[in-house]
């Protein structure tokens, strides 16, 4: 785990899985995934980052397909993948699975979570779920202008400390906060900022026991697998795509760096 941060510019994304997920990986240094609740301005952030003009509509479920774009910053090339907007990663609808599988199996170098500053509590539910499955994330606190109009104040430093990731206030429609966001993505991608993501603790002892029993087994079978507890939890919940990944041994390919031999 620690060795991961030793080589500064070593990307953590999983090239082969990304290619399998349909991402062209030519001339790309870092892969950035954009996640977030519907209607938080995620597509607007995407357009600002990439200079593309994806149609942005003010309704939930607008992005039904994955959009891709890119930019370069500090001599590095970034590929941005816009995931479908979701309220959670726990249900089994197609769009939530797309988003989750991308973060889990594609292992983007940075996952940017776009949140609506005027509805932070509800948006945090997704943020916490994303932080369960990735170590490298940036929270883009969008719609700060609307929050200000509604007299909502957010203590970003405290929020950043709580979540263990950079928090960047922004107003994407006015293009505010975008340079800061790009800089923060660069920090996390290069490993200069080491995230210490918030992980859920408040579980029943019985559940904790079950999770750790299963996680031990998983660790033995798939050495180096990240997010052991999360995978264990999903198995306990009977998540079909994770069950399939265990059955086929696909999960082994997630192990850091080393691909398990194709059998």
């Amino acid at each position, binding site marked *: 785990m620690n060795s991961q941060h030793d080589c500064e510019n070593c990307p953590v994304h999983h090239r082969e899985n990304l290619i399998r997920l349909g991402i062209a990986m030519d001339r790309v240094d870092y892969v950035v995934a954009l996640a977030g609740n519907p*209607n938080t301005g995620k597509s607007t952030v995407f357009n600002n980052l990439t200079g593309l003009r994806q149609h942005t509509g003010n309704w939930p479920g607008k992005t039904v397909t994955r959009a891709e774009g890119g930019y370069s910053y500090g001599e590095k090339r970034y590929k941005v993948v816009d995931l479908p907007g979701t309220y959670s990663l726990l249900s089994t609808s197609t769009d939530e699975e797309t988003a989750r599988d991308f973060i889990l199996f594609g292992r983007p170098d940075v996952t940017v979570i776009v949140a609506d500053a005027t509805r932070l509590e509800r948006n945090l539910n997704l943020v916490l779920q994303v932080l369960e499955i990735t170590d490298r994330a940036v929270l883009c606190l969008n719609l700060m202008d609307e929050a200000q109009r509604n007299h909502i104040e957010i203590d970003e430093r405290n929020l950043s400390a709580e979540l263990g990731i950079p928090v960047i206030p922004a107003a994407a429609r006015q293009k505010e906060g975008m340079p800061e966001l790009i800089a923060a993505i660069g920090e996390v991608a290069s490993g200069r900022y080491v995230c210490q993501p918030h992980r859920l603790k408040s579980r029943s002892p019985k559940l904790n026991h079950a999770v750790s029993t299963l996680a031990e087994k998983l660790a033995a079978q798939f050495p180096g697998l990240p997010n052991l507890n999360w995978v264990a939890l999903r198995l306990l919940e009977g998540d079909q795509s994770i069950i399939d990944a265990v059955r086929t041994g696909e999960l082994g390919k997630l192990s850091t760096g080393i691909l398990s031999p194709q059998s």
Partner: protein
Amino acid sequence: MAKKQQSENEDILSLANSLRWELGVDFHDTVIESIYADASRIARKTVRTEGEKPAYNWDFKIDRIVTSRWLGFPIMFLLLAVVFWITVSGANYPSGLLAELLIDTLHPVLKNGATAIGMPWWLSGVLVDGAYLSMAWVIAVMLPPMAIFFPLFTLLEDFGYLPRVAFNMDSLFRRAGAHGKQALTLSMGFGCNAAGVIAARVIDSPRERLIAIITNNFSLCNGRWPTQILIATIFIGGAVPAHWAGLVSAGAVVGIAVLGIFFSLVVSWGLSKSVLRGETSAFSLELPPYRPPRILQTLYTSLIDRTIFVLWRAIVFAIPAGIVIWLVANIHIGDLSLAEHFIRWADPFALFFGLNGVILLAYIIAIPANEIVIPTVLMLTVLSTGMHEMGEGAGVMFELDSIADTENILRAGGWTLLTGLNLMLFSLLHNPCSTTIYTIYKETHSAKWTLVATLLPIVLGLIVCFFTAQLWLLFFSTAEAVG
């Protein structure tokens, strides 16, 4: 090695299974609760709200009106009618200009050019009269209304009105056993059914998604509006006193669109009670705050993303259709062309349904794009009635400058108010265009459901046309006998 690994993988899964038993059923809720508890704790620590929330009150007030029980639907229909009115009245002039440029000016030039370089008549017929002209028609007829409709629709979307539409329609769809979000895919279908079918991805349950895909064709798409408007103006508007004509024919078109929504609900209900039985899934629809639309950006993106995209695929499909249309009108067996053979053969059958052979043939060869139905109908009518002084010659699609001339041709072809009405109904209830069929296949990966989605509307259309025709004949022959 592989065997061993596999069995160990299975071991993990069975361990997970037994642990799951021990944990009991409610632990999923515990996990979710812990997420919510943490989110709420962090939010309490970091968010501070001062005083009232004035901006929300505006949203709340607008929502009170546009989603109210009594005003919700009238406002929805009114907005829809306004959008269509702007589209129709605004598209006339640019459509005329494009037609003049592409068809009246460029087409003869190309035709003469082809003759000048010694191209054989059949080749210039296929290429210039068939392929080029059908493409020109699609551009002239489609581009202006789409360039107006899509930005208007997108502005409503950008403003935040569409989720309210879904909110209003939700209970209707739920009673029909379908998903509330089907209201969104249905609205999308008014622009383009292929887009509506793709939009059905927002629906989680495969059962309800399939219902939304199959019924999307009942949303009257952009390509069918011109047909509706032209026929309504000639036959329905023509049947009432002149000062009522505009209002009545516009009302008839909106009536057909509403009928489409009605069929959407009825068919959804039928499907969910028969082959696609199951529970209606609950969903939460967030009503986002209203935001001032960004007009310039909306214009740009809807032009690039939707208008050009839809236009391009229409052109791709219209070119081969144009070639086929030219060929069936020009390949002769005996004295008659293929088209005339078909029309004569199909006429008795079609009249049974209050249609005619020309309409059936036009719908068969215009499967690629609904936009070319009317030009094809006119060409075929002239061909089959032998009015060679009208139109441009065999296999050449045309449209006339004045609605009166169009009316003369159709009346000469034996059209009545009933034919007009049934054409409007059939235009609503027939198979989806080939792009939509292909999209349905790509989305469902199922030949069976693609076939159902294709055939179901035609069968329904023929039934509806049949009953309309029979009732009409019954009513009018009785009225004549009495009179």
